[in-house]
């Protein structure tokens, strides 16, 4: 286990190398978040509450979900795997006594911890202070929120990992990536609006897909939309998706490896 932790630490340090990129990302994120916040403020003029969301709660929802979205566009797992396969670098990974999936996850966790600490947290605190947002109702809720964020993160990771593994079979996977991550995930993760605002048929589709477990569940736990039995169900759904997607990623990777060792690189 310790060897994977080293990957996390090194990936965390490596992220420091790309300071300019980080500042650019942060700057653009903040602009987008400002636009969303003012959009919702404008939409709420003359209204007090929609679907159980008052202005403060909707702003909190938007800021938290936008902050969590940062993981989606900083993860780059698909790109990294695709590049490793294309350049043949994946072979050097396979020549080491190490588990490829765990190594990739450990590396991603390092990069993302850095993002959480130096991009997401400051961004969130800025909006929290300026717009007077709320905190979760109790320390337990903070704890459950963090658990839910981590589970959502592993789901996002696994989806990207599986898409990346497709690179062993098809040369071009950017289309698939765009479709899943920028199409399906954007639409069904609940980052545009809370799931409560979705028309019934879209909500039904969202319910059978893993994407709402990435952003909507943790955000709704934070804002207090999901409590009691529904909160427990949400966490259980997340756990189920984690198990299913990590397991499927493993099978996909095994199949890819089998293809590699039989057909060559």
């Amino acid at each position: 286990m310790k060897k994977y932790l080293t990957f996390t630490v090194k990936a965390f340090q490596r992220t420091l190398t790309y300071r300019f990129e980080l500042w650019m990302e942060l700057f653009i994120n903040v602009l987008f978040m400002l636009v969303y916040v003012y959009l919702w403020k404008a939409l709420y003029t003359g209204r007090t509450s929609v679907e159980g969301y008052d202005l403060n709660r909707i702003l909190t929802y938007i800021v938290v979900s936008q902050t969590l979205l940062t993981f989606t566009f900083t993860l780059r797992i698909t790109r990294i795997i695709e590049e490793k396969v294309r350049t043949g670098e994946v072979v050097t990974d396979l020549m080491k006594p190490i588990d490829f999936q765990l190594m990739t996850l450990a590396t991603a966790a390092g990069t993302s911890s850095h993002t959480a600490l130096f991009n997401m947290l400051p961004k969130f605190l800025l909006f929290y202070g300026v717009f007077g947002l709320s905190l979760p109702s109790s320390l337990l809720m903070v704890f459950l929120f963090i658990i839910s964020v981590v589970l959502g993160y592993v789901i996002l990771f696994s989806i990207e990992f599986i898409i990346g593994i497709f690179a062993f079979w098809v040369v071009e996977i950017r289309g698939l990536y765009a479709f899943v991550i920028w199409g399906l995930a954007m639409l069904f993760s609940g980052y545009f609006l809370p799931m409560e605002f979705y028309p019934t048929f879209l909500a039904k589709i969202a319910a059978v897909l893993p994407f709402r477990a990435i952003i909507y569940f943790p955000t709704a736990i934070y804002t207090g939309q999901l409590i009691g039995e529904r909160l427990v169900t949400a966490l259980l759904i997340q756990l189920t998706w984690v198990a299913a997607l990590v397991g499927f990623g493993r099978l996909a990777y095994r199949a890819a490896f089998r293809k590699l060792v039989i057909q060559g690189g």
Partner: protein
Amino acid sequence: MPIITVEHLSKHFKVHKRRTGFWGNLSSTISRKHDIIKAVDDVNFSLERGELVGYIGANGAGKSTTIKMLTGILVPTSGHIDVMGLTPYRHRKENTRRIGVVFGQRTQLWWDLPVIDSFELLKHIYEIPQNLYKQNLEFFSEMLQLQPFLSTPVRRLSLGQRMRCDLTAALLHNPEILYLDEPTIGLDVVAKEQVRQFLRQVNAERQVTVILTTHDLNDVEKVCQRLIIIDSGKIIYDGGIDALKKRYGKTRMLIVDLAQAYSDIQLDGVDLTRRDGNRIWLAFDRDTISASEVIAQLTARYEIQDLTISEPEIEEIVRRIYEIGVY
């Protein structure tokens, strides 16, 4: 007990055949035909512990395919491989713990981390005990003079520096076998010499078995005791370098500048292999005729301005083997 035994090893690849033209395209989409390429074809050899072997062949001869099967990332179509008592593709992880691999074309170091960080990662990956790690790092840093750039990110290293780091990375965990795939590619003369000397020393002092593939036959001549030549998937020579020279190096070449372009040149026991104006190339077998006899014949019949005798270089021998096969 050999450390590596390879018996009747073959690897065949299926390559899809594309037909041309409209109907060809259409039928290709419906039913694909394929050719079988025999990348490695019934190869046999064995290596003793501590041997230093050059594994050479033209591009596409099957060198890398063999190395990939030995390292366990390619499953043979048929045949048997035994590496330290393991079947590499079945015991891939265990096998990787006991081997080191260096690819000249790509690095196993982390591109944007300082060199020392890559070494530390490897320490954890291979679970190298701290004292052994320190000892090895000191040993290799001194031998390859890594100290000045240990904290430089890998992407800023020169090719020569990177190769020295890659060699260290492959040896930190005390592997029993070291596979090198074109380790001197793109290096300048000084760096090449450094790598060669290092390999000799590591082999001698640490008893590491080394398999080296290369296109630079100077590597082989200066580093290896034994040479395996593979061509179109088959081994065409396996033996000592001196034996190769003795066997194929019997032919000597006499290059003669004649005073004038004689139209008809007749000499006994000598092959006229090439002529260019007044210059002629004469090949002869040193066991059947001596150089002085050839020169005596020449001077008796023709007027000579200058002449030189050349012993065949290993490069020349191998080139001829590639071209015309074993003779």
